[in-house]
């Protein structure tokens, strides 16, 4: 499609359009990656089930919120947030609490276990097919050849709002301070009277909830949700977070946006079947050449 001869300005507009679409998609990845970075980078909780949490958010917000209950976009996003929060508490109770500070392999295994349960459970209880999610807003702005959908602006707005809220929470509240203390040194935090276990539970729930909102946005943006979307979503979140350095929340946001743009340009170069290969490929390449990511501080010591 891009190969046909076009005037220069049109080609430019074409790539500008791809970049805009990529940024919108990247904003969703960024939100997923931020949640993931809160769980994995800050709390040192190894999670494999994040993709399934995103999927639950998409089912709750995107499907039940928008398509079934007709709640409108804001309440639906809230529903996705709440559902993923609950899932986060459940995961904490089953996968983490029994082994405080335990070897990460155990958490890896338990979260693989629960991820299988959640995914197959969703397939059995929900549906094995793609389910349709109607449009919540269908307007667009046109600037010359460039189209910007309202929904794309909404996605970026939600990303900005939630990352701002997270920044305020981490910087201005007592619990946020405790969370940062736990992320730096759990033993020292415990000695200073921080209830480490509880803070980790809440931090994990917050990270999951952000993923749930991202899932609801995915459902709304692509007009579909399905039970096995979590596998790819989880790897995308991981890839974007690794891209940005895993421990760094701004890095995760940047990584998500870059991944979205790269994917869109890559799809243009190859074909849409290769979309996910690009994501995985980027992840493996980043792990190889710069495992500490773009903005990471201590990624290297994990390798």
């Amino acid at each position, binding site marked *: 499609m891009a190969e046909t001869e076009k005037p220069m300005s049109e080609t430019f507009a074409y790539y500008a359009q791809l970049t805009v679409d990529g940024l919108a998609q990247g904003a969703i990845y960024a939100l997923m990656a931020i949640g993931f970075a809160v769980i*994995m980078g800050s709390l040192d909780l*190894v999670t*494999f089930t994040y993709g399934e949490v995103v999927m639950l958010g998409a089912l709750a917000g995107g499907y039940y919120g928008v398509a079934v209950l007709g709640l409108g976009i804001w309440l639906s996003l809230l529903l996705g947030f709440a559902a993923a929060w609950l899932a986060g508490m459940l995961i904490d109770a*089953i*996968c983490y609490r*029994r*082994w*405080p*500070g*335990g*070897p*990460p*392999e*155990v958490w*890896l*295994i*338990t979260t*693989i*276990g*629960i*991820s*299988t*349960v*959640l*995914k*197959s*459970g969703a*397939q*059995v209880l929900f549906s094995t097919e793609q389910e349709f999610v109607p449009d919540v807003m269908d307007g667009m702005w046109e600037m010359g050849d460039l189209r910007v959908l309202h929904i794309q602006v909404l996605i970026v707005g939600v990303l900005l709002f939630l990352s701002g809220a997270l920044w305020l929470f981490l910087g201005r509240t007592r619990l946020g301070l405790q969370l940062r203390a736990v992320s730096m040194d*759990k*033993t020292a935090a*415990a000695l200073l009277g921080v209830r*480490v*276990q509880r803070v980790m539970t809440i931090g994990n729930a917050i990270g999951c909830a952000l993923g749930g909102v991202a899932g609801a946005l995915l459902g709304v943006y692509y007009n579909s949700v399905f039970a096995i979307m979590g*596998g*790819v979503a989880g*790897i995308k979140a*991981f*890839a974007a977070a*690794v891209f940005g350095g895993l421990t760094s929340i701004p890095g995760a946001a940047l990584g998500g946006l870059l991944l979205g743009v790269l994917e869109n340009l890559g799809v243009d170069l190859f*074909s849409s*079947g*290769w979309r*996910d*290969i690009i994501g*995985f*490929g980027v*992840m*493996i390449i980043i*792990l*190889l050449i710069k*495992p500490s990511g773009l903005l990471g501080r201590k990624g290297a010591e*994990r*390798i």
Partner: protein
Amino acid sequence: MISRLARLAREERAALLALLGAALLAFPLGFRENNYLLRIAINIFLYAILATSLNLINGYSGQFNIGQAGFYCVGAYTAAILATRHGVGIWLALPLCGLAASAASLLLGIPTARLKGIFLAMSTLGFSEIIRLIVLNGGEFTRGPMGIPGIPPASLWGWELRTNFHMYYLALALAALTVLVSANVLDSRIGRAWIAIREDELAARAMGIPTVRYKIYNLAFSTFWAGVAGCYYAFLSNFISADSFHLDEGFVILGMVLVGGLGSLAGPLIGAAILVVIPEIFRFLAEYRLILYGVAILITMHLRPQGICGGGVMDIGDAGGVRDGEDPPDSGAEPAAGGEGA
């Protein structure tokens, strides 16, 4: 109870193995026409090969691979392409498929040899999915989503192995071969190097083990057997498509190793048997098959983290509970069953 059984099993190992072998050889004679039972047994052997191959990595060299399905896929597609387009028979295809999977593993192993934990796990997962997506988008070569039908049946000296009865013995032989060769390699210099890497990579390197090279050997050796299993699967089912090699397949294999016990030779065999048979007993739970695997992994981790006959790899009694010191899981109550190697 379990420890007494384990002691008995250790003392009477040769006799028990002979008895088991005889039973497995005789089993199909009584059920020659019972394709249902034969298929279950064949599945157990097939997964036993896959789980044993994964255990070589996760259990012995202590790395964390969850993408074994990708190499299984490579083996199956190599077999299908060789058999349908080049007329290669199963006997030549088996080693070739193993080698193809090993070659593919180098693409993963060489770049990721320095990664650990979830970084390695995610890379193996991504690689497995990349293989499946490449197969799915492979155009004429892999026939994309249509899969490859019409794989001719295996034959031996002009004698076609068409029935499940024949394929049972082939699967049994391959599973036995996998375990025997693995046991011998694990008992060799290379195998001990793997175990040393698992126990303490830094110490292993200090003792002069080139850890990166040995980890690459480890992955290549393990994936060889996954490729062999893929080849067998292609000849067994006559038709393969990328759908059979989802990430879930990798989790199923991982579940078998974890439930059976990491780092013991018997573990993956027992895990494969249990996780193949349970869904068959609870037929009404067929839909919930994968949920069952997930629950099995979780229950194992909560009740017996080293697996049914684990070799002490998941010995989290010491490492866990350090911080809060509450509820230490009982450790050291029983000697690790199974042991290392033969």
